């Protein structure tokens, strides 16, 4: 075993120990600064993908002086291979709602929104019911906070926070220029906290058990546990809560079917890790972990040796080509060029050196694209092409 | 005088004027490709056709002389239709990839498209040519873009007398270039680049070195030194829409600094040095000729600053190479000094030095590849970029050239005199040399208004002058009463004439200056387009203006030169000079 951290199953999120009402009541009576400090000390980082420290996010927004602020729960989970948010919202919706309300208390907001992706329309009735119950209780305890669901309509890019705001404002979901950042200028131009569903669920855990219990899990720079959506060539697909810092080798031992050739970590915009690097790969946020460490939305997709990595890449690129918002050049044209490019190489119309040109192109996309989508196309492209070059060539 | 009517306007022109010229004199513009000023016209492109009343067919205005009473329409319905069709036909055999063409926005075919406004496209022909010859270190020939206007043929044959560019085969398979099996890099091409200068499209271009230079600039381990030739400062401004003949010396130095060059030196410094070396060499030869009986002294001596000319000489007159001065060209001298004198002085490893020359010349790109120009495996000059390439780099870097404050050259290789400035124009080297030689011989300043030798200035092809020496200093007593005869030519056709004289033993001259390009470096193959006699004159005047504005106008009075001899070189023609500043020539095959 190359890693000191064995694979460790954790069960915070889906276990309901205490009543959410109690948690809510307790926490909205604590001073905001205390809550922020607790969050900061837990070192919880955003579970959507970018990994921004949650406590800091709340703090920045709390510091802005404005009458109107918003709390938004980002449930536009579009990353291929990810389905943890759906699971949370359908099983423990109150945890998310409670965290949103606490956040509202911390930053001084009275309105929360859940941006639910259009594909999860079927969750809406249950979720609405939960919201009703929740708001009723809020009224009971005289806490002024309301939550609404905002339905998306099928656009992966709306998971990008500024695109999500645009979408909520009734426009095309095109990402904005940053700066300004949401903490100053978010939904309707107001200071906004926007958190991923899972982040809010972890927040609940922290408020429930205290920061220490969370902090004690995981490794430096990657604290706590995380939900992983396991799919692909695995005998046991599904959602698992695991401690961060595990080695990919341990993970594959547990979930693989013995023939795993590569694992795509973090969905289409994540990285592909080939078998030879399982041992040196540690799953966590960027930091000083040994080997490569990966930003991750928690999607783990396993591929057997029978799978053609060309097909995988082709599928990803087609996904990006369609789901790019199309406004900035590197992403719009770049995705088309990458897709057409690997096709041309596969068909033998371009020689293998063209792949190097495409790799340089992904570098440019990473540097210059307007938002995370275009920037992260490079991840899967370069990791697949570099590791499975021979499969790309005619 | 002849009376004719063009576009309902009655005009009077001299007899023998073509319709094209008549129109031009009267501010009526006719589009043209193959037409070239001052050269016999061939009328091959047909884009300049006009309608002459009473004529059945349309006439090519560039070859049809105006006749008495002629009534011409340059823009009638028929002309417009025909012109359109000709243009379409030209395009049908052209790649039409403007946006990835290096001549984009400086292409006459593209401009014509702007004028003609085609909307539909009727002919999409087969493409006849696809040769890209990049064998030469100076020039790339991309025949797919060639529109067969034959300007390069004219310039290579009529003006330069090299005769390399010619049409081959006929009909649709016609192509222009050296013969089929010949590569530019292995031919008699002198790399003068005059063909590049006249090409209306992107078929002939200089080999781009900007990428190499950028690479060096981004390389943190390298000290990058740049030098600029005298003619560059008189033309660079044109790329940034200044009037031709605007001097942009200060802005150029500032831009080079902004581009990230560590040191900006001036080739002019080495021009002054050349005068010292070449002048001494000349006096040495003259002394031998007049005082010793052995006939080793070869006269006339011919200047060796122009690499195009050198290569021409090596091919055409391999037996006469002894006439060439053994001096390297100024930019090679500066390169050699940078990697020795300067490196020593600044304590830099010469291998970490990267020397870039900005030249008005494409032949210099070839010159730095000559094996003689390496010392201990290190090239004296690492890269040559033309004036056009420098313009491109400045644009590329987003430098607002027109609003730059003036900058300065760096020492110790940046100071120069007026004598060096005029190296950029035909007659300049001779004049600069005589200023110094005369004074060395007689102790007096050279006679001539404002230190100029009037017969040697201007754009005439062959210019001659004679200078009688009286009362020389005692050591030059043998020259008393001698009339020194000199000749100057630019353009290789004139050079061939002078050399034929030498070959047949009838040459009366002692000293000859030859520059490869018509007008000298000011209209070198690497200068901004377009170039015509008007622009040449404007640039030439700018060069003289720069000279006259200098406090010091004689090379031997350059303080840094004196310092260089004192600290490093010793004396002109000394041991170190020979090692660093002089070279040898190679006999080459005639074809």
């Amino acid at each position, binding site marked *: 075993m190359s890693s000191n951290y064995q694979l460790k199953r954790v069960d915070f999120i889906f276990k309901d120990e205490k009543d959410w009402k109690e948690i809510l009541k307790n926490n909205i009576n604590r001073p905001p600064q205390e809550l922020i400090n607790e969050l900061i000390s837990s070192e919880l980082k955003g579970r959507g993908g970018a990994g921004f420290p949650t406590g800091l996010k709340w703090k920045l927004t709390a510091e802005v002086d404005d009458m109107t602020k918003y709390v938004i729960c980002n449930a536009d989970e579009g990353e*291929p291979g990810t*389905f943890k948010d759906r699971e949370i919202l359908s099983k423990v919706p109150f945890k998310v709602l409670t965290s949103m309300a606490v956040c509202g208390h911390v930053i001084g907001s009275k309105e929360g929104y859940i941006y639910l992706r259009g*594909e999860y329309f079927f969750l809406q009735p249950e979720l609405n019911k939960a919201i009703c119950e929740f708001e009723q209780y809020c009224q009971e305890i005289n806490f002024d906070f309301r939550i609404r669901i905002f*339905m998306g309509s099928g656009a992966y890019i709306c998971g990008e926070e500024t695109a999500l705001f645009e979408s909520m*404002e*009734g*426009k095309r979901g*095109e990402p904005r220029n940053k700066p300004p950042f949401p903490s100053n200028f978010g939904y309707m131009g107001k200071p906004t906290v926007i958190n991923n569903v899972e982040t809010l669920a972890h927040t609940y855990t922290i408020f429930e058990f205290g920061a220490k219990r969370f902090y004690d899990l995981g490794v430096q720079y990657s604290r706590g546990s995380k939900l992983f959506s396991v799919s692909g060539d695995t005998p046991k*697909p599904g959602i698992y809560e695991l401690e961060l810092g595990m080695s990919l080798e341990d993970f594959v031992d547990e979930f693989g079917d013995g023939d795993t050739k590569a694992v795509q970590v973090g969905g289409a915009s994540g990285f592909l890790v080939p078998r030879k690097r399982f041992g040196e790969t540690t799953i966590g946020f960027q930091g000083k972990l040994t080997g490569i460490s990966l930003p991750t939305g928690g999607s783990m997709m396993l591929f057997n040796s029978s799978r053609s990595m060309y097909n995988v890449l082709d599928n990803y690129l087609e996904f990006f080509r369609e789901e790019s918002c199309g406004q900035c050049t590197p992403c719009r044209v770049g995705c088309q060029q990458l897709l057409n490019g690997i096709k041309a190489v596969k068909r033998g119309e371009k020689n293998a050196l063209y792949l190097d040109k495409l790799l340089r192109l992904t570098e440019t996309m990473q540097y210059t694209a307007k938002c995370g989508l275009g920037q992260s196309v490079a991840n899967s492209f370069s990791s697949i092409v570099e590791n499975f070059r021979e499969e790309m060539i005619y | 005088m002849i009376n004719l009517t063009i576009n309902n306007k009655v005009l009077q022109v001299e007899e023998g004027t073509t319709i094209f010229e008549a129109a031009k004199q009267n501010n009526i513009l006719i589009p043209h490709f193959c037409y070239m000023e001052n050269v016999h016209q061939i009328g091959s492109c047909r884009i300049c056709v006009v309608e002459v009343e009473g004529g059945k067919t349309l006439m090519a205005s560039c070859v049809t002389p105006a006749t008495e009473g002629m009534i011409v329409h340059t823009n009638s319905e028929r002309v417009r239709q025909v012109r359109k069709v000709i243009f379409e036909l030209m395009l049908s055999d052209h790649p039409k990839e403007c946006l990835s063409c290096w001549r984009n926005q400086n292409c006459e075919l593209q401009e014509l498209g702007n004028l003609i406004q085609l909307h539909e496209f009727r002919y999409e022909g087969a493409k006849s040519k696809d040769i890209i010859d990049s064998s030469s270190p100076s020039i790339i020939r991309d025949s797919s873009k060639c529109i067969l206007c034959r300007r390069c043929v004219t310039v290579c044959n009529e003006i330069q007398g090299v005769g390399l560019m010619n049409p081959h085969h006929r009909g649709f398979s016609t192509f222009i270039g050296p013969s089929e099996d010949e590569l530019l890099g292995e031919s008699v091409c002198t790399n003068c680049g005059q063909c590049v200068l006249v090409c209306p499209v992107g078929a002939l271009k200089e080999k781009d070195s900007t990428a190499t230079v950028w690479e060096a600039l981004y390389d943190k381990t390298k000290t990058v030194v740049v030098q600029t030739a005298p003619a560059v400062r008189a033309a660079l401004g044109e790329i940034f829409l200044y009037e031709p003949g605007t001097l942009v010396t200060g802005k150029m130095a500032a831009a080079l600094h902004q581009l990230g060059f560590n040191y900006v030196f001036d080739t002019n410094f080495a021009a002054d040095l050349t005068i010292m070396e070449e002048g001494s060499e000349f006096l040495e030869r003259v002394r031998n000729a007049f005082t010793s009986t052995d006939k080793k002294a070869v006269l006339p001596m011919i200047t060796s600053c122009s690499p195009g000319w050198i290569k021409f000489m090596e091919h055409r007159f391999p037996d006469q190479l002894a006439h060439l001065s053994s001096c390297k060209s100024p930019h090679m001298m500066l390169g050699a000094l940078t990697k020795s004198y300067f490196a020593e002085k600044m304590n830099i490893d010469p291998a970490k030095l990267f020397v870039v020359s900005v030249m008005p010349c494409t032949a210099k790109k070839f010159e730095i590849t000559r094996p003689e120009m390496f010392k201990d495996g290190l090239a004296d000059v690492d890269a040559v970029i033309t004036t056009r390439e420098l313009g491109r780099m400045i644009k590329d870097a987003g430098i607002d050239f027109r609003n730059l404050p003036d900058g300065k050259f760096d020492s110790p290789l940046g100071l120069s005199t007026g004598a060096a400035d005029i190296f950029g124009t035909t007659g300049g080297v001779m004049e600069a040399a005589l200023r110094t030689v005369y004074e060395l011989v007689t102790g007096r300043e050279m006679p001539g208004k404002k230190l100029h030798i009037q017969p040697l200035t201007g754009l005439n092809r062959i210019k001659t002058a004679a200078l009688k020496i009286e009362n020389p200093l005692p050591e030059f007593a043998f020259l008393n009463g001698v009339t020194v005869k000199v000749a100057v030519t630019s353009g290789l056709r004139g050079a061939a004439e002078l050399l034929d004289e030498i070959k047949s033993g009838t040459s009366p001259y002692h000293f000859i200056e030859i520059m490869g390009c018509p007008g000298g470096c000011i209209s070198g193959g690497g200068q901004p387009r377009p170039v015509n006699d008007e622009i040449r004159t404007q640039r030439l005047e700018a060069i003289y203006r720069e000279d006259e504005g200098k406090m010091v106008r004689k090379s031997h009075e350059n303080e840094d030169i004196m310092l260089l001899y004192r600290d490093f070189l010793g004396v002109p023609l000394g041991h170190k000079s020979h090692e660093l500043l002089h070279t040898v020539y190679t006999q080459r095959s005639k074809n």
Partner: protein
Amino acid sequence: MYPVSELIRNLADQHGRNRHNLLPILQGVVEQEKYLSEYSMIEIARELDLPASEVYGTATFYSFLEYKKMGKYIIRVCKTITCSMKGKNQVVKAIEDMLKISVGETTPDGNFSLLQTNCLGLCHKAPAMLINFDVYTDLTPEKVREILTNYINKKGKGE
């Protein structure tokens, strides 16, 4: 069922007439009509006092807001990687064969439209599809035929 213009007015009353209410209104129309016709887009623009072109621009951005006429049941088969690995193509083929349409088409009787869509977030139960907003997972060609038969029968019963 309301006529479209009335529906739009009701939706606008319900959600509001601001720019940020556009999406719920578009969704409301699509829910009933299955697609956004030129007419309904104009009506929405009029109701919200928006330029029609902006309504169009917004609608075309989202893949669930169809602007071409769609069938009563819209079948969306996930085509993203896991579903694709686990036999999406056979599923699509089965549907095509059964309904005699190909992807992007609507049956002549206007009952079914077949589309492919990007990740539905059901990767652990791949392949997956939606029929309107009902979820079907772990599909096989046999299972799909069964599901569709149910729909066809439902329709036959006059539902």
